């Protein structure tokens, strides 16, 4: 289907939605939501990102900032030192991701500009790189924390934390 013909078709679909066409008529479909699997890299990516949010929050709260970080460390059942190590690993992991995102974007832009569809395998390679960085972070985390800290944090991530995460894989219909 070319761009020229897809526009009016989608306009029609959108208009039907306005007048009450069932939501199921939309073309984007999704799998059901679920908790991530144990040691799912996405689980760790979320936790790493959350560490930056926490520390930004703490830095902006002179009165309660230290209390926030200590409270979260207690909640994770790790020491303040292990919590600091978690923050360092999180920073290191998150710093490695933007270059991959930028490379993926540059690649797809150049392909589009050349009138080609980006190669799915190439896109999956970028995704694999991202997952590898997160998995590397998981290994770095284990190495950086005390044995007890890692044991407790690992249990927390795959227990209490994982069970409060909802994920959904989005796959486009072709």
């Amino acid at each position, binding site marked *: *289907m*070319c*761009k020229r*013909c*897809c*526009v009016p078709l*989608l*306009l029609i679909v*959108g208009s039907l*939605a306005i007048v009450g066409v*069932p*939501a*199921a008529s*939309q*073309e*984007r*479909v*999704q*799998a*059901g*939501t679920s908790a*991530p699997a144990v040691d799912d*890299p*996405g689980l760790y*990516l*979320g936790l790493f*990102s*959350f560490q930056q*949010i926490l520390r930004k929050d703490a830095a902006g709260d002179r009165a*309660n900032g230290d*209390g*926030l970080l200590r*409270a979260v460390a207690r*909640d994770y059942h790790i020491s303040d030192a292990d919590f600091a190590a978690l923050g360092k690993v999180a920073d290191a992991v998150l710093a490695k*991701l933007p270059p991959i*995102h930028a490379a*993926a*974007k540059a690649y*797809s832009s150049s*392909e*589009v500009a050349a*009138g080609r*569809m*980006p190669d799915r395998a190439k*896109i999956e390679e*970028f*995704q694999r790189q*991202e997952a590898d960085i997160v998995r590397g972070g998981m290994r770095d985390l284990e190495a950086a924390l005390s044995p007890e800290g890692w044991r407790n944090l690992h249990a927390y991530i795959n227990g*209490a934390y994982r069970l*409060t*995460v*909802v*994920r*959904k*894989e*989005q*796959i*486009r*219909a*072709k």
Partner: protein
Amino acid sequence: MRNRSEASGKRRLLPRRPMWAPIFILACCAIPGSGQTPCDEESVVFNGQSYAVRLDSNHVKTYGSSWVVNDQLELWTPYDGAWQQLNGTDITTEAIGSANPGATASSAWTSTLSGTGPGSYTDYSYHWFVPNQSCSSDTSTDYLGYTRSAAVAIQQPAISGANAFWWLGSGVLSDGGYYAQAAWSADPNGATGTPTWSVYYYGSGQVSLSCTNCTSTTATSLAASLGCTADIKITVNYGGFTSNPFWVTIAAPAQLVLVSGYPQDKDGNPNDSTGWTSVYEWNLTDTCGYQDPGLDGYELFGQWTQYNGSNWPSAQPEPPASNSASIWNDEMAKGETYGLNPPARPLQNPLTSIQAESAPWTFTVGSLTVGLGLQVGSNTSMYYVDHGRHQ
């Protein structure tokens, strides 16, 4: 190709496309001649999470977060709309946070427990994701749905210990199993740090505390409560989060209640069986109306006054005494054989009103040491020629 939802049989319905959705189709970056966009080749994983943590004794913070995994092309903007809930009910409005593609969106609420109180705190968040409008042929927002955090259960600090004890007069800490002190302990119930004790008075009762920034304190009574009311409120405060009130009553021995049938008058005194004897019995009761056995006590006389040219020797107080019971008695007596003027007589009928001497009389309990304790009786000890009276 079958899409995954069909394959799994978990087809879910998405919210209706917004009215403006078709407009953005004009900006899509489809590959010429293909009808597809690079984003149509992407599979991404949307994530949402809720988190709640007790920051300190007086604050709970809740977060909602949204992020995307495997978003190499479309660059979804994550959104998180978060409410804080107490016992399953919203106590905040919705806070909406968003982040640049590739980052995590987060929104948070902090509650001050002194204002919101104890209970079960949770984050309740809604997560949605808006695609880069210039990339996909499908610009509809993806709605992941709701998450709820694990609950943070907050209990108020509490105070334990005796909530009623005694006032026995200045300087008396205990007597006969009656105590003017109580040990109180603060139970943080999850709060942290050292509590601050506070005392509020709503009547006449007063106490002093051995320490006010401590986990355990010793309270010493300074004054009795009004009647038998709990008129002292004690609280502990952990960083601003205050316990439930701990109400305290300070009881005190209060009065001598004349036992029915007294005074009793009879002929003869204990030494030579001449003259007369008058006997009193009183029941010692407290501000709560109960009898108080076991206290020490003593009597005192003030300045004696002689009447009608009397030469009667002044009566001497009995020495301080312990008493296992709550009944106290007093025996007033005079004999005829001591050359008294006016002479003492056996009981007359009717009793005479001729006075010989009198003195102010007080009775104090709580100590064997004269000058300490709590006065529970005060009257005039009057000696008539044929009987005696407290009047």
